[in-house]
């Protein structure tokens, strides 16, 4: 029964996308800065093809920013039924498939971890202990969160190449759950090759493979641990070097490095998007620009350190947090990134009851989604608003994402506390105790 429901859900999601493709929506979405960025716009990919056909290196200009292998590989899009649209629908189908498989495996993993740790739990935590029944719907919800999420629908319709990065990250996640070090590091290096920021996902990946190889959990800094890290990293860098080397062979010069990674790191394109970079660096004083570029880029990845320390035993949650944080603070974020973390969010449904400001965050998301295109239109086309209006909305959107991720973090930690200390917190005199951060 559930299986049929899942198929129906996936099919409905696909049909929805196919149906919307016949409207004016795709052409409109392709111009929306929240949906496509200079990095992910299909229009720019086509420009890359056109330049290459004319024997001009696509990297000699500043329009095309895909990687050289993507430039070669994306040509297959024209061999699909319905050409590029068909290609992106196919990508969506793959994403849905692996999302579902990932969530099924993840539910199994959750139960397994819980069984291992159960004896350490408080006896008073029965009410929040996970059961197979309570998790049965998770894969379906995950799938629904992808197939029916307006953000992922928009990503598909706008033919954003962010869908490719999303797929590779989900594949990384899937093979991480499978414990397949080779494929996991391969897809990790593909996604890092494609959009650079997934580079830091090497931290949870390395931690998890250490855990797998030594279930008894030795010290995280022992010789064995370090050798396990080195193995994972070596595989990752081997694949990355292979990809970069292949790119060099196909392109014949290193020019692409600046056009792809340099473009991501130095943020030369100040086209508005839903992140914090664009207006900040539009209004930045020139002599501070380099400093703040470094600070902001560091900000996107630095959370890997405290989170890795805190969640060294929970690599999947760590990975999810890193996916979330980088999609907020990357230099060219879009709804494609948001659709990824939204579809993985239900994996932590068991912590939702501990979240404190879902209503506020939900309201912020809805407001931003509605107001962003309106205020952009008022600024660019109607001329009756200025850049500050749109900036305010992008700030609110970033703030909403930050509230959501910190709320989730709080909820997760709070639930952990309850697991070990019971759900009832009483003082010695029997009154209700308060739990605070010390």
């Amino acid at each position, binding site marked *: 029964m559930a299986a049929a429901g899942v198929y129906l859900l996936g099919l409905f999601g696909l049909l929805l996308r196919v149906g919307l493709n016949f409207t004016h929506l795709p052409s409109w979405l392709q*111009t929306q800065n929240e949906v496509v960025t200079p990095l992910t716009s299909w*229009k720019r990919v*086509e*420009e890359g093809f*056109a*330049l290459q056909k*004319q024997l*001009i290196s696509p990297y000699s*200009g*500043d*329009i095309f920013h895909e990687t050289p292998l993507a430039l070669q590989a994306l040509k297959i899009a024209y061999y699909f039924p319905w050409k590029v649209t068909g290609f992106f629908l196919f990508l969506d189908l793959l994403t849905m498939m692996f999302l579902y498989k990932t969530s099924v495996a993840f539910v199994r993993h959750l139960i397994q971890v819980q069984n291992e740790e159960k004896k350490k739990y408080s006896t008073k935590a029965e009410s929040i202990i996970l059961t197979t029944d309570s998790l049965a719907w998770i894969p379906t919800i995950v799938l629904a969160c992808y197939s029916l999420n307006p953000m992922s629908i928009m990503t598909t319709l706008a033919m954003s190449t962010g869908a490719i990065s999303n797929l590779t990250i989900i594949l990384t996640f899937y093979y991480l759950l499978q414990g397949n070090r080779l494929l996991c590091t391969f897809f990790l290096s593909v996604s890092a090759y494609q959009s650079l920021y997934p580079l830091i996902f090497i931290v949870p990946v390395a931690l998890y493979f250490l855990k797998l190889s030594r279930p008894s959990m030795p010290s995280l800094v022992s010789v064995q641990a370090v050798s396990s890290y080195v193995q994972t990293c070596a595989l990752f860098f081997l694949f990355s070097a292979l990809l970069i080397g292949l790119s060099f062979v196909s392109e014949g010069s290193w020019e692409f490095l600046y056009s792809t990674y340099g473009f991501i790191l130095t943020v*030369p394109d*100040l086209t*508005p998007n839903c992140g*914090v970079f*664009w*207006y*900040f660096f*539009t*209004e*930045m*004083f*020139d002599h501070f620009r380099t400093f703040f570029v470094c600070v*902001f880029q560091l*900000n996107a990845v630095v*959370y890997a350190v*405290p*989170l890795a320390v*805190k969640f060294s035993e929970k690599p999947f949650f760590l990975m999810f947090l890193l996916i979330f*944080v980088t999609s*907020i*603070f990357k230099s060219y974020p879009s709804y494609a990134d948001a659709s990824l973390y939204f579809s993985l969010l239900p994996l932590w449904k068991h912590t939702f009851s501990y979240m404190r400001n879902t209503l506020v965050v939900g309201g912020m998301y809805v407001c931003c989604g509605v107001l962003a295109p309106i205020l952009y239109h008022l*600024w*660019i*086309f109607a*001329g009756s608003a*200025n*850049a*500050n209006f749109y*900036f305010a909305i992008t*700030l609110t959107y*970033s*703030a909403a994402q*930050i509230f959501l*991720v*910190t709320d989730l*973090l*709080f909820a997760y*930690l709070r639930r952990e*506390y309850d697991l070990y*200390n019971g759900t009832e*917190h009483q*003082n010695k005199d029997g*009154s209700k*105790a*308060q*739990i*605070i*951060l*010390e």
Partner: protein
Amino acid sequence: MATTSGWSRCRAVSVYFKVFLCFLVSTSVSSKQKDSFTEELLIKPLSRGYIYSHFQFTTKWNASLHDPTTFHHFHLFPKALGEVLSRYNVQELHLSQTQGLWRHKQWGYPVHDAPPGAELWVWFRPSVKDVDKAWTELVNAVSGLFCSSLNFLDSRSTIAPRWSFRPAGLAPQGYSVSSHFVRYGTLPREIVCTENLTPWKKLLPCDSKAGLSTLFNAFHFHDANYHSLGLHVRPISPSNVPPYGLFLTTTFFFHHCLQMFCFSCCSDWSLRSLFGNHLASACPIASKTSIMVETTDNEASPAYRLTPTPTWTHTVTRGTGQHTYSVYNVRSFTEVGRGLNIAGTYNDPSKVKELDPPPIHAHRYITGYGLEDGGVSCLITNTLDRNQTVIYMDVLPWFTRVFFNSLTVQNNGLDVPFKVHFTPAKDRVRPYHLELSFNLWPHSVTRVSFSFTRAFLKWTEYPPDANHGFYIGSAVISSMLPTSRQYSAPPLYFSKLDTILNDNSSSYLVRVHSESLVVSLPTPDFSMPYNVICLACTVVAIAFGSIHNLTTRRFVKLDPSQRKGLLSKVKGFFKRSKKEDEVADDSNKTAAAEDAACQEKEEDIADPTEETS
């Protein structure tokens, strides 16, 4: 275009002999002088009361560019310019500064076509190692020489034209095969004013003391619909073959509309009405001072009468078209003490014909709405009854991101095959450079169009009047015309206007500059950089603070009754100090009790019952 360059090379040989002969004649007159100077004025009455006047001052210097001693002694050639040319190893230099837009469809072709604003293109000598460096230094020097903003021609607005701007003078074999030594840049926003006219006049041997340059009256010039200052330096022989030589052509042309609101009638004109004065003298240094009036349209059905009678009238057949010129030898008038005031008196204005449209003319405009995407379209009209090959060149700034795949060349809805050279821009480094070669079909309009996306600039990159928009220079359409209809320039490789009179060439190089464009870019709010920096940093700080909090602290159980708010802590501090006082003074007991009661109350209020982080 390869055929054209090949053609120009064999053409160069025949030209070389002609220049040689011309040179021998001139040296026999003034054998001691290595340079000669001529001043010429071409007047062309057009329909609707427009008069086109083209002043041309030509200095021919019989000297080698490569001889280091050449630039030690100057005679008629301006020293200031000569030093710049030798310092930066310039082979050829073409500068124009223009105010207004030349309307080819109504006015035909001028002698030297120029875009609105300033245009500079330079060929450097092969000895130059670093062409970009030489260009940067040269534009600064030229900018100082002509009081213009040419120093803004940095790499962001400079290109090396592939096909369009071939050397106008003779050049060594193989020199112009690649475009390594040529640089081209325009400043469409540059305004031409009296401050540009003054340094330009100083290049003339007679300044404005005698000769045709006495007609320069800044008031009348700036009153004209269109005026353009030009400077063209080109070698008249390859560097290693005699005769050596340089042509310096300084041109000034402008356009007067005598009757602004009357389209059918034409009014009488004279040198006095055009320039505010008659011509009293010829430049004594000049080997020749002449005024030519093109009276081609007046031949069949005379609409106006020229006074005084010209020295001679000459009809020349250039290609398929016949041109009639009335030539005045100024000296023969001024030497007898009479001033020369050439006048055209209309006796039958109804006979004034509209000009036939020239063979090729263009119209270019911006398409699209809003401040996001846009496009450029250029309509090129061919009025000839044969295919005409043209080269279209367009330079767009980096902030209009041109999509190459949107480029189309269409004629009547059909795609026209074209050959293309495209250099994509690099942000803040170089512009988009597009050159196309294609055929214009007979009696048709060909549309070149492409789309672009506007980039968002940093707030410091906008000019002070950011909402005025950004200028895009003219497109340049070059072609070799088979007919001289509406054509007024001297034949290729010649400079002096009187060479028109014995021209027997069969094709005519024409360069049409289209309209320059203005694009508005989206602007940020310039007034609030600090606010933006603060707000964005705040959002980042929220994330950093929250995550820092949650990862570095632990949950603990707390009895709400044990917990103290900030207020109670402060009170507690004071209470402690008061208690110490109490020991000393027992009389305040009641007050302390009241205080304690009050504090308890405060605690109840201050203690939140919910869990907080």
